[in-house]
């Protein structure tokens, strides 16, 4: 990008992508903002005019709001915890030379390619079904009463399903990070008298901190918007209504576009708060 000419050529060539991206983000965002200040009930009178901040007040003062925020955070936190811890362990395991490594790696990564709706249905019907599910059979084999997963432990069930989907992603990123660890560092620490656990704590884990940061950041962004897994399993009942699901219910089940849009704006704010928060805590790792 040295000359004036190449710079302007670069700008022209980038323009379509930039315009498309801006349109992609700006149009939905503006529409959400626009509707959030209107009383808009498609099946009950349509556009009923501007209402100021009415929708915002109603959305927050609804008894469903704070529980849904809490549910969202529990799901995000739970999935992050499980995927990062298991991801690190799996990455270490997959880094060891073992027979059939290629196939094992593909198998580990496979869940990531399954669509959320499909994987949630598979879990719901094939694993967690209290009559015919694999878990029910397992429980019965040991003479225990099958657990009704989705009604008895609904949040845990959803966290499990979502974790299963995201574990491959975490494992993949952490595995590449582990593979980039200089083996001489491990050998040096071995000669320095560090037992395996110390080698993990002092060498491997610090080396992974950057990759863990990336996993946490990317997953948080996607996990805040988890929807299909809830839609096909509990439909938001039994305390599994996340903020995303609440917005969906407001817009489509209650047919209140204005109220839902206001919720959407809250969701944007929440996501940004979480993002800033995360950047502050762990983003430091990315600089060093």
């Amino acid at each position, binding site marked *: 990008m040295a000359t004036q000419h190449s710079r302007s050529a670069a700008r022209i060539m980038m323009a379509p992508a930039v315009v498309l991206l801006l349109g992609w983000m700006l149009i939905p965002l503006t529409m959400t903002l626009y509707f959030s200040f209107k009383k808009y009930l498609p099946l009950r009178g349509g556009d009923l005019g501007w209402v100021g901040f009415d929708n915002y007040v109603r959305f927050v003062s609804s008894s469903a709001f704070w529980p849904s925020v809490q549910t969202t955070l529990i799901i995000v936190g739970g999935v992050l915890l499980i995927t990062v811890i298991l991801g690190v362990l799996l990455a270490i395991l997959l880094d060891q030379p073992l027979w059939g490594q290629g196939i094992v790696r593909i198998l580990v990564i496979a869940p990531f390619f399954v669509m959320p709706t499909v994987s949630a249905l598979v879990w719901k019907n094939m694993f967690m079904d209290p009559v015919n599910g694999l878990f029910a059979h397992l429980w019965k084999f040991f003479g225990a009463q099958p657990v009704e997963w989705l009604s008895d432990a609904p949040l845990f069930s959803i966290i499990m399903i979502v974790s299963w989907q995201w574990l491959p992603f975490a494992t993949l990123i952490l595995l590449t990070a582990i593979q980039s660890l200089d083996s*001489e560092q491990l*050998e040096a620490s071995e*000669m320095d*008298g560090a037992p395996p656990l110390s080698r993990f704590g002092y060498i491997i884990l610090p080396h992974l901190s950057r990759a863990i940061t990336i996993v946490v950041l990317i997953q948080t962004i996607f996990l805040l918007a988890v929807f299909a897994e809830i839609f096909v399993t509990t439909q938001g009942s039994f305390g599994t209504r996340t903020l995303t699901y609440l917005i969906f219910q407001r817009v489509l089940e209650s047919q209140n576009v204005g109220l839902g849009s206001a919720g959407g704006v809250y969701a944007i704010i929440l996501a940004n708060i979480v993002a800033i928060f995360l950047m502050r805590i762990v983003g430091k790792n990315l600089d060093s």
Partner: protein
Amino acid sequence: MGQITLKQITKNFGDVQVIPPLDLRIDDGEFVVFVGPSGCGKSTLLRLIAGLEDVTSGAITIDDRDATEVPPAKRGLAMVFQSYALYPHMSVRKNIAFPLRMAGLDKAAQNAKVDAAAKVLNLTDYLDRRPGQLSGGQRQRVAIGRAIVREPDAFLFDEPLSNLDAALRVNMRLEISELHQTLKTTMIYVTHDQVEAMTMADKIVVLQAGVIEQVGSPLELYHTPRNKFVAGFIGSPKMNFLAGEYAAGYGAATIGVRPEHISVSSSEGAWPGKVGVSEHLGSDTFLYVDIDGVDEPITVRSSGEISARHGDNIYLTPDVSKIHRFDNQDLRIA
């Protein structure tokens, strides 16, 4: 104490035997250099001594104790790696203190030892920095510091200077030699650079394909190489080899003459030739001379003032008393 003995050591990687049965004795306080072309097994040998690789058969004794099955940390050896292998997320102080921390020393004792090592290595001002903020030479010193604080029976160096630039390499070479004089600890040093080997070693071990070709002091290897390989490997620029009728006159299959043992003349001499490239270093001039019946140009070291130009006719005369003779097995004829 740091006396290390290798008895009939072998090492296989899969079906490939990289080190055939090998015996070696390293005395306490010696500076031993393993030297050889890349892939000759010198690093593997060092890693066997360190315990980072298991021997396939044979025994390693350190100070008369059998160390063959002893884990690396318990052998009392410290190693400096080619990549330095510093811990990037720890400060220099923590890096140097790491082996002490692992040994369970209390904080005060750790700090005292780290400060002492830092003083020896001129690192006192850098103790709070991260390795990433240091230059190559400083990193190298941190790696050495981490080895020193353990007060090992022997130091192992795995090509420690190969990542440094030429000027720094000369400096570090001196510093390591100096360190050996002060500590008087056994040091085993692996390098592919024969200059490093010649300048630092008490004893050089020349390896080729896992086999020890010769063990001896630098000057022993220089003056009486056991075979053609050692003769060609030790000395810089390398020895010239002449076969055929040139060698027949001396009753050998091949003769070797070092560049510094050939005199040049523009009018008369034993071997007439044509000057090829000449390298003027100021103090010396290296001439590459093509002579009849020899494929490789003959390297000649002459004074810096010589004014030979490309294509000039020239006469070479070897110093007959310094000619090395080799039989058809490439072994030296005494």
